């Protein structure tokens, strides 16, 4: 499954410009330390964090995309930095719990 497929099937809104890529597994965490320690290449990172530090953290662990849940507004400096690094930021009004359920039903599991 690619980020493009996911946008369509899970009803996610892309907030940045990026090249579609394969999604391989999921990590759900609101702590950068957790993500830096545990994320794997291609993981979809689900979080409510919108601080611009999420961009270099996602870049460092080679996440396929960051999904901001709960309808949280993403600051412009976060989006600017993500565009600069071609990091996909997707958005959903669903809670992390609801989104995970939806992704699980689509066949995405932790890697």
């Amino acid at each position: 499954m690619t980020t493009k497929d996911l946008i369509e099937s899970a009803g996610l809104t892309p907030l940045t410009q990026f090249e579609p890529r394969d999604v391989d597994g999921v990590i759900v965490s609101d702590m950068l330390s957790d993500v830096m320690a545990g994320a794997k290449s291609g993981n979809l990172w689900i979080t409510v964090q919108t601080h611009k530090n999420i961009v270099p953290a996602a870049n460092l662990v080679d996440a396929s995309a960051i999904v901001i849940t709960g309808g949280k507004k993403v600051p412009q400096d976060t989006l600017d930095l993500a565009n600069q690094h071609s990091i996909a930021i997707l958005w959903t009004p669903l809670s992390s719990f609801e989104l995970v359920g939806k992704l699980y039903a689509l066949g995405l599991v932790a890697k």
Partner: protein
Amino acid sequence: MMPECQHRWKMTNIQFGFTVFEKCSHCQTVRTYFSTQDTWDEYREGPCLWTIVENAQTFKFDLQCTSCNHVESFADLLGLLYCTGCLPDCQVEMIRKECATRKTWILVAFGFLPEAKSQPIPERRLRMLTDHFNQRRDTSRSTIEIVWFDQIKNLSLCRGEFIHDVGMLSLETPEERKPLF
């Protein structure tokens, strides 16, 4: 003779805690340390009055080779900072710009201050760190390069951002961060 191991690194001995930045109002020195406690207390030490400037959730780790089991300690690594391009004539910014053209992202490794100024993490271990993060990614898309913080032209003006959990608990947009050093 055994061939030299082509190390494949994984994180080991992961310990979650806090990176504390404290500053003395008497001598203006900044020092940093890792703590397992979330501490904000100020305290006296001789003529010095130490106040916490920043306290961020972070983690410590070592690297272990999955082939030969060799463990390399990174107890002296404070964290990684990404360059925000705040100083155009800073060496890090120049390296960052040059590397961005070949999709290599620059991160700056910091040791704990003040020790790290006189005892830098050697290039050999920075290479291990770089290798670890590159081994975890699809390098056909982009790569990571880690440099030591002595490349920063002026620490007291640097507005680079540490990749650690600070200002992450508020629902408000964070204020622009002030230089830490």
